[in-house]
């Protein structure tokens, strides 16, 4: 995952393949037994997981309370629609702002921590937000959450589009996802991106090199909270409701699982693969058995035991093996997958 030095293109070949698949999805989805709604869900969770991987995969900070920021984004969007009826853009902006503010606040308490203390503190903060969301009936609607958050028209300057149909909504979410992918790629190949990877490799050494580690950790936590907030706003837009379930310890754990099953530690695209695996597993296993989580949990345990670098790690190894057979192949292994 170490990023190469020198000039990095704004849009890579892998990105183009991804965008092609992303935007053509509604055309072939039904042919393979999928539908638009799951596409919307996957797009939203990819935004969430990619933003999360900034923290987990690139900075090496395991947060187990990230659901809080998704939830805060969802509530902020929902409240803006119910109380202000400000339209999609304002709602999403508020969602991002609210989640960023919350993440920034939490990060103040977390940024000087490492390892297990960091993980435990994120659990504590995640639980605080979850608990408040359940108990603060007046604002959050308690366990039921905010209901009937209708999808408004999406204003695009000259025209406005109805988001009532899942297909339109999918294109909207996919467009946002595409922008996010480019932004994240840019961030990761900036000096800031190099600094966070230095912190993952060796925090003490990064500090000795003169990086302001506290500030960098604070920024990356807050930034990843902002992405979670955007995902949360979209989540509320899609579900037409916001509820505390997404903030629970389990839901926060799911994003960690998705990021790792795909191989977030070794590849930029790891979280994308992980999210797709999760939702396909939910639909496929869920159609066979009620207890799909049991099987998914077992699958996850097996991945952690036998292939802890996830799908991307396995792919990297296979690619490396193929590459060593064909001497001509230039980039192989981990470099190829970033």
């Amino acid at each position: 995952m170490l990023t190469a030095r020198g000039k990095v293109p704004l849009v890579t070949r892998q990105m183009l393949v991804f965008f092609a698949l992303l935007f053509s999805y509604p055309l072939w989805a039904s042919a393979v037994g999928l539908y638009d709604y799951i596409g919307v869900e996957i797009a939203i969770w990819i935004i969430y997981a990619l933003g999360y991987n900034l923290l987990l995969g690139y900075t090496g900070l395991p947060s187990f309370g990230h659901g809080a920021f998704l939830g805060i984004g969802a509530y902020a969007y929902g409240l803006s629609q119910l109380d202000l009826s400000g339209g999609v853009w304002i709602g999403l902006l508020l969602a991002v702002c609210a989640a960023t503010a919350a993440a920034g606040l939490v990060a103040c308490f977390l940024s000087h921590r490492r390892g297990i203390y960091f993980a435990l503190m994120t659990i504590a903060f995640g639980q605080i937000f979850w608990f408040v969301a359940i108990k603060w009936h007046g604002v959050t609607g308690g366990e039921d959450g905010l209901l009937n958050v209708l999808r408004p028209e999406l204003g695009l300057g000259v025209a406005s589009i109805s988001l009532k149909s899942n297909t339109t909504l999918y294109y909207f979410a996919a467009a946002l996802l595409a922008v996010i992918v480019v932004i994240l790629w840019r961030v990761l190949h900036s000096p800031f991106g190099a600094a966070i990877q230095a912190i993952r490799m060796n925090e003490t050494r990064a500090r000795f090199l003169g990086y302001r580690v506290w500030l960098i950790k604070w920024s990356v936590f807050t930034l990843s909270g902002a992405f979670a907030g955007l995902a949360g706003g979209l989540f509320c837009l899609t579900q037409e409701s916001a509820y505390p379930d997404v903030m629970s310890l389990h839901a926060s754990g799911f994003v960690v699982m998705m990021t790792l099953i795909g191989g977030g530690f070794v590849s930029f695209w790891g979280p994308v693969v992980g999210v797709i695996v999760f939702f396909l597993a939910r639909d496929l296993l869920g159609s066979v058995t009620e207890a799909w989580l049991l099987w998914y949990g077992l699958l996850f345990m097996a991945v952690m035991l036998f292939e802890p670098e996830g799908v991307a790690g396995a792919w990297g190894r296979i690619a490396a093996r193929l590459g060593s057979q064909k001497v001509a192949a230039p980039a192989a292994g981990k470099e190829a997958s970033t």
Partner: protein
Amino acid sequence: MDFISGLLPHILNGLALGLLFALIALGFTLIVSVMEVINLAHGSLFALGAYVALLVISPDLSALGPLGEAYAALPLGARYAIALVIAPLAVAVVGFGLEVCLRRTYGKKKEYGLLLTFGAALVIEEAIRLTWGPAEQVLPTPEAVTGAFLAGDMIYSKYRVFAAVFGLCAIGLVWLFLDKTPYGAIIKAGAHDSEMVRALGINLSRLQLLVFGFGAALAGIAGIILAPIWGLRPHVGVDAVIPAFLIIVLGGIGSFWGAVAGGLLVGLAVGITGAYATDWSILSMYLLLILVLSVRARGLFGKKTVLET
């Protein structure tokens, strides 16, 4: 005086809860200090203990014929006592299994072990839901500790006193075990420097296996005792594992007295705030944690450990 007597039951409730929290946290901290793994499945093991106890106390043994009838005819107290032995053992066996899996992650990224236990937590919880159903169940308690008694002009639940005394005894036994026996000395040495322990010719793998099983069994016992107070749901484990995290961080990772003091503090905080704002009482433990950590970064009794790298 009214103020004191009004608050006293809440303080006692808090202490009882705190002692059991401390018991959960002790198992947790043992596992963290010897294996350097946060056991996210600890709460599920807690729930599993309670469910196995339920199975032992009121089993469906009609298939066994007269033997089953004889067992069912045993007084509830006897079956409860049997459950108190069998259920933690069963949980310890599950703990053994989990440790054997965990072994593959030692020496790799810390997150892998952590996440493996998260997966295990999901699996155990779903398995409980499959086996016993999602509905809330009641764990029967023996006659002797059911009901209430009068102390002065105060009505107090017998079961909570039993729970407090049981928690106290269990913590005392764990302390005796760790502090006064050679096995305890090995465990503490293993927590301090596992390489050295191996160099001294002690079977480290077996030590880790047993410590994990022991920690799991402590969670199972706490589950049995807390089940009648909290009720029995498949996801009850989360209610146990979260306080355990907080207590460990509050008291300092790897510290015995830190876990006990943290447990009592959290129990008291929850108990006393319960007197004023029942709905919000759980929040008090998070606030307590943030308060303590703002003053002492490694908790009350914590030292700098390998876990921070």
